[in-house]
């Protein structure tokens, strides 16, 4: 975690592909900070659910990734970017139930095809950019 200027708080985390054991650490840390800022608990819940889903996406599909969080007075911007296979058809991936997760990942209870739809549901703004065989960038914004 690297703090910065007074008006903005910045936090960064690294995610390792395939490491399901430690998925959830960034979302827990972000949650702690938002609680200390006195953000409304429903808003926190939305943010944390979206971030956790995005984290699991990186863990389940990509090789490695980073989470950069920027909090200012009235909003939180989270950028989750990974190096990985990318998403060939984003519209298709946004459909509930569509999944490309491997059998192994599904057996661990992940990969139900609800990741991106769930992120969409819990964020105010969502932007996804992806390049096949290079990686994916997911930008999520929630207003307080």
């Amino acid at each position, binding site marked *: 975690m690297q*703090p910065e200027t*007074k*008006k903005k708080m910045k936090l960064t985390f690294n995610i390792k592909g395939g490491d399901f054991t430690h998925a959830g650490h960034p979302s*827990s840390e972000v949650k702690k900070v938002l609680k*200390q800022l006195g953000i409304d*608990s*429903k808003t*926190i819940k939305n943010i944390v659910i979206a971030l*956790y889903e995005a984290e699991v996406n990186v863990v389940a599909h990509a090789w490695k990734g980073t989470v950069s969080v920027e909090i200012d007075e009235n909003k939180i911007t989270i950028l989750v970017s990974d190096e990985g296979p990318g998403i060939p058809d984003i519209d298709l991936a946004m459909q509930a139930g569509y999944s490309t997760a491997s059998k192994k990942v599904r057996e661990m209870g992940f990969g139900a095809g609800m990741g991106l739809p769930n992120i969409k549901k819990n964020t105010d703004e969502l932007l996804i950019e992806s390049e096949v065989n290079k990686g994916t960038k997911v930008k999520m914004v929630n207003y307080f």
Partner: protein
Amino acid sequence: MNGSSIYHALDATKCIGCTHCMKSCPTEAIRVVNGLAVIDHDRCVYCGQCHRACPTHAFYVVQDDLAMIRSFKYRVILFPSIMIGQFPEKYSEDQIYDGLKKVGFTHVYEVEQPMQVLIDSINEVLANKETPKPAISIYCPAIVRLIQGRYPSLTENLILRKAPHNLAAHFAIEQLMLEGARREEIGLFYATPCIAKIAAVKSPVGESESIVDGIVNMNQLYNEVMKVISEGQAEDHSVQRQNLSAEGITWSLTRGESCHFGSRGIAIDGIHNAVRFLERLENDQVKGIDFIEMRACDQSCAGGILLTGNRFMTVERLERRAKRYPAAKDISPETIRAKTKELKLKLILDSIVPKPHFAFGKDRVKAMEKMSKAQRIVCFLPGIDCGACGAPNCQALAEDMVNNKAKMSDCTFLQQMWVDEGRINAKKAFLNTQKKWGTDRFKADCNKRGRRNEGF
């Protein structure tokens, strides 16, 4: 019952200012100041961890004077079944009931009756599609306070049905009034296994006022009963237990609730286990579970801090006892059936509101400034969470500093560095530490209290 809302405190003559309680507190509510532990009562959830951790038994629990029961004509002792479980095997239920009467009570009620009324009531909540799942039991008051303070978004998952002591209190009043008693002649006293239940009885959450007139700490009651209990033939008190069921007897034990509710119910005991699980639950990482029983103490109420008997032996005795009692659904005397509807209405709680206590104040911009500052301070702290500053960990110290509750020099590592850099002299540094921990900390003493493994 109003007045003070502080139910446990520290005996300054016994506290040696070690860090055990501070380290074990699940809400970081304790600091060591001038060589003494200090509780922040706004953060405290009454889980009792500090009592357990204290090597000098410096924490004490407030209690009402037993003599007050004399001002009522009908003196009812309401106690959870675990009370029975902690007595040595050689004492029968009737001998224990006899003992309670000799102590001065006229009526003896175990609180977990008539259980089917509460079971049905909770099932109604669970059957309602609008109930957020997983629904969380409010049985353990320490858990309710923990959720309000630390996991405020989960307060909506709490099941708004009162605990068994309310059930039995209403039921006891009904029965005594049938016998001709007037309401004002009835005094209801609750024998409590823990501080959390005292708080729940004296300043209830989700109820305007408690139905109980006073509390008796279970360890005190145990000692009083042991003074007068007879080894001989006891009177038959089974009529007072005619509504007691197997479910009621095991209700306060781990899985005592979760085995009855939901298609997938889980049970968690121990406050630190609860904290870890609530963290996951709040992140929406728990799927498919519809009922959660959660208790602050290991082995649930059998592990309450005011119990005398060994908790594992208590569980064993109760499990065996439950086998001799009928199932709750098979007990339905006329008196209950007629009153079920009324009783059920009385079991409904008002809403439980979140009370987040971790925020840095109301102004968000100021809060962000404080947090950024705390993050910068943390960079300079050693990160070993030693507690020698009087705060439970480095992060907590940094937060205390930005809230003007601690100084940079409270960290012995920073201070050491300043001495090395020549910014303060060694004498001044020593005096700082002495001020924090008292002069006795520096005296040689082979029997010094507070060292590791004390009490083994």
